[in-house]
């Protein structure tokens, strides 16, 4: 049994497991941190961004002034932002039989895999994962296509040239695998290959292996997977959470007795307590509004935003923010809010019981009904005429490189009354802000990552007792910036097997038995001798 590791990003994994002659891809994560190297895509013509000087090397030998721009002391690529794809050379991706998706954040590379590699298999995901995943893809495509950029910068990727560039471009890895965003047509085609599954459903693959999704507690419809035969069991743990937020709680007991447990998707903010961050989020928001400033919250259009809105629902009255308008701007804002209300089966018990009353499970329905929360597909159209300040705006993309958020950065960045509050943990906020410097607006960093932390995961592993653990190499040492924190790594006996991008691991497995069936005709003739 072998594991091929196609992504080096610990929370956006893409691994391929070969087990009993089936080839199973576990997640299809797209590393979007690559977009931080690109200039933002403004929705409205920005004189500042259009007048940036081109980059020419100090000795004048390399002239890339068309492709690279000098902005606020850093060099950025001036082209449509590109994503870092999972490795496609390590094995023939057309041989993949099935792809198992664990949550909607971990499927963003799906169109690249299913559409351009000769893939003919099936993708398995839960219904909320499919529906919300579709919304997130639609949103990114929309963000990109709204601001078309003819130019595609390629010269800078030349190895010889890249070596000469200033950081962080110089250190960017695998730049030749970076690709532009897919089209809606590719998204639809990729998602048509998805077969829906329910938690604890047993799916037989070719009679050789059985796979089954388990609730992972991280997001709507998020799952961990069990891949097993009659005598061997592999658990795949992706983004999981033990906190009580909106999704159904994590199913831990079904992970017991695994021969191998593949562990990915731990929290990216091991030192930040989500509850504390939520409190800080609210108090900073209230402070800015009271001082007459606006609040910008760059976020994904599904996930933590539901919890933020629920928290604000309780907070608005007590903080006397009843008259402050809250705006949610995204091409899929309406769909996301509506979809969240119809997945009762996938919600935590409290929210489920609400549906029996019948009441909508999320309180944002009431916020919308009472006009406290308004949603718009973009800043154009109705929003521009109805928009009042001071206000709170939730919008994407959290990288600050594309989407409506770019407009608000340009609009509000110059005033120290305004505040930007980062809640998504996927991007370093300093890097995200780099092309907007110098900024007068206040920046607050309250990353909310509800995924398992090292303490929780050690406890979990002690309980479920897998024989072997496989994990990204990042989890086997403390973070670079906190090298003394030995509590921020996995310490296990036997030690976990680390992987990195392009690793191929031989998983320690001894198969001894196989299940066969004796036909009734034969079993009737069996004569037995007691010993």
């Amino acid at each position, binding site marked *: 049994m072998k594991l091929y590791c196609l992504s080096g990003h610990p929370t956006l994994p893409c691994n391929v497991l070969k087990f009993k002659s089936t080839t199973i891809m576990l997640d299809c994560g797209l590393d979007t941190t690559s977009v931080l190297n690109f200039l933002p895509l403004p929705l409205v013509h920005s004189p500042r961004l259009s007048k940036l000087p081109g980059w020419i090397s100090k000795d004048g030998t390399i002239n890339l002034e068309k492709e690279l721009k000098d902005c606020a002391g850093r060099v950025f690529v001036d082209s449509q932002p590109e994503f870092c794809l999972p490795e496609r050379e390590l094995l023939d991706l057309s041989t993949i039989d099935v792809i198992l998706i664990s949550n909607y954040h971990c499927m963003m590379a799906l169109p690249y895999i299913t559409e351009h590699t000769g893939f003919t298999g099936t993708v398995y995901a839960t219904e909320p994962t499919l529906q919300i995943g579709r919304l997130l893809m639609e949103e990114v495509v929309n963000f990109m296509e709204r601001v078309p950029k003819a130019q595609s910068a390629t010269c800078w990727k030349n190895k010889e040239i890249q070596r000469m560039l200033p950081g962080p471009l110089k250190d960017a890895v695998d730049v030749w695998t970076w690709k532009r965003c897919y089209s809606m047509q590719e998204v639809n085609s990729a998602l048509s290959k998805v077969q829906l599954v329910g938690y604890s459903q047993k799916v037989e693959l070719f009679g050789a292996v059985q796979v089954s999704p388990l609730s992972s507690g991280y997001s709507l419809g998020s799952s961990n997977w069990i891949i097993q035969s009659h005598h061997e069991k592999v658990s795949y743990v992706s983004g999981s959470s033990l906190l009580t937020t909106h999704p159904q709680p994590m199913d831990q007991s079904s992970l017991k007795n695994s021969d191998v447990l593949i562990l990915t998707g731990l929290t990216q903010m091991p030192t930040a307590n989500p509850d504390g961050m939520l409190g800080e989020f609210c108090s900073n928001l209230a402070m800015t509004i009271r001082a007459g400033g606006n609040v910008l919250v760059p976020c994904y259009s599904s996930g933590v935003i539901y919890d933020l809105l629920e928290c604000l629902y309780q907070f608005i009255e007590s903080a006397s923010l009843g008259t402050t308008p809250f705006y949610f701007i995204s091409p899929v804002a309406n769909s996301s809010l*509506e*979809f969240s209300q119809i997945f009762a089966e996938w919600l935590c018990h409290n929210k489920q019981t609400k549906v029996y009353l*019948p009441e909508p499970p999320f309180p944002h329905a009431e916020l919308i009904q009472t006009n406290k929360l308004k949603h718009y597909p973009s800043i154009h159209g109705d929003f521009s005429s109805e928009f009042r300040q001071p206000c709170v705006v939730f919008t994407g993309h959290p990288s600050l490189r594309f989407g409506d958020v770019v407009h608000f950065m340009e609009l509000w960045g110059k005033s120290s009354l305004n505040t930007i509050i980062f809640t998504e943990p996927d991007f370093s906020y300093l890097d995200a802000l780099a092309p907007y410097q110098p900024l007068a607006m206040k920046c607050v960093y309250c990353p909310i990552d509800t995924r398992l932390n090292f303490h929780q995961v050690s406890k979990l592993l002690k309980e479920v007792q897998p024989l072997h653990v496989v994990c990204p190499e990042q989890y086997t040492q403390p973070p670079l910036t906190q090298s003394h924190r030995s509590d921020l790594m996995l310490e296990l006996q036997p030690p976990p097997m680390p992987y990195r991008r392009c690793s191929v691991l031989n998983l320690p497995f001894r198969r001894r038995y*196989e299940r*066969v*069936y*004796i036909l009734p005709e034969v079993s009737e003739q069996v004569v*037995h001798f007691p010993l």
Partner: protein
Amino acid sequence: IGKITGCVFPLQGAGQDVGRSCILVSIGGKNIMLDCGMHMGYNDDRRFPDFSYITQNGRLTDFLDCVIISHFHLDHCGALPYMSEMVGYDGPIYMTHPTKAICPILLEDFRKITVDKKGETNFFTSQMIKDCMKKVVPLNLHQTVQVDDELEIKAYYAGHVLGAAMVHIKVGSESVVYTVSVNKYAKSHISAWIDKCRPDILISESTYATTIRDSKRCRERDFLKKVHETIERGGKVLIPVFALGRAQELCILLETFWERMNLKAPIYFSTGLTEKANHYYKLFITWTNQKIRKTFVQRNMFEFKHIKAFDRSYADNPGPMVVFATPGMLHAGQSLQIFKKWAGNEKNMVIMPGYCVQGTIGHKILNGQRKLEMEGRATLDVKLQVEYMSFSAHADAKGIMQLIRMAEPRNMLLVHGEAVKMEFLKGKIEQEFSIDCYMPANGETATVTTNPSVPVDISLNLLKREMALGGPLPDPKKPRTMHGTLIMKENSLKLVSSEQALKELGLNEHQLRFTCRVQLQDPHSDPDTLHRIYTHLKSVLKGYTIQHLPDGTVMVESIVIKVSSSAEDTNAKVLLLSWSYQGGEYFFTALCIVKRLMYQ
């Protein structure tokens, strides 16, 4: 290992009768109750299933492993609080989320009509409904629920009414599928219908066994035409419905028709449940059809413009109107009150969109009865037009046949239908699929013997060794013999090589050798004779290992050949052939060759 006897069904009220469903299944030592319905045509004890079939005294908990409810119609769940709280059952009750949400509301509604309005006693209370619902475990579609170590159940989308489910029940390798009513249109829903799960028995309702219904669109058009004509001539239309289910679909139909035709006549929906019911549909939209799901973000189909809440005073208003009123069989409540008011006018119309149980007024007027005896000896002349439209999504012949084709059951069991109609369907099934079809009457038991195959763990070493014997590419279509030892130990079966079996069982290996003496005349010396045999065997038996050993023996595979002569007559030679038990197959070949050589 013997035959395992399968499933028994003492049926309670679900046999050859339409009214209430309650089926008991025994499978692999587990007892499961399927549905727990109530008969709408009775007001006495016959209303509830007779649980004394299960036990004469005491609680049901000890006899039942679980209860599964297929959907929220009262003929399938109406006796639930009676069973769990009054007879006594504390085990798990499984139903889908929408059923769990709607079932208690219908039960409470029904309780109010029976106790508060009709003044009956000895009925379950509101508290009992609540306590009963606490025992409910919600089921998700396709989720495999492990009731205990051996019993597992899985729900499929059935599309009958909101939240209706088929269930697959499995113990070991024996299984049963139970379905109320298969809606042909279920396939248009995203969730797959049912796997080819080859159950031992498929239990299906057969309410519309003989009808092979025309297309849904035709019926819808017909319905709209009739409503429209009545309105045009100034008549009133009464549509008795159950608060949840088909009613919502008919509302959508009328709403769009009114919009398109720009009609002004009012449409009312009888009070109480309307708004709440529509709310359920909004929140459980994933359980409705594809068309409704697809558009729900832009426009929620359940927010009606033309349909308003009904007030009882409206019934006397002049002019045309359409009223949806509960209950659906005209046996009590608002629909009956309105019916009484409108029955005398031939301009009016009543459209029965579903099946009516015997004994109800709905059933009577559908059978052409024009004079009805009402309470207090009054008679009611029925002059209004009576129309029947089969919108209720019970299984029809086509749906059942399609389901059999999908699931490939080994046996079929029909319930919840009228005997004659079921007989027709039974014949059709037996003819087309050549499977046994049962249709037990109430209280009757149908037993089906199953013949499961036996799961065995085979040692991978043995499997690989045996595979290798057949050459590099085994022909999957050709049966092959394999050798191994079957060990039965603590309920598990293992197939291993005999060496491993001996080792595991701590037994010594005994070599069994056979020896055969062949007398013959040969003038040569003993070593010469042996050498002749050796060279001859070597020339004849190509591909075998043949050795001439220094100790004066020849070996063909595991057969040992020795030559000795008697002291008296050196020409009289004795050939000793010795072979082990396993070597038996080569022995006769070797013996024949040697004999032929010597007698030459």
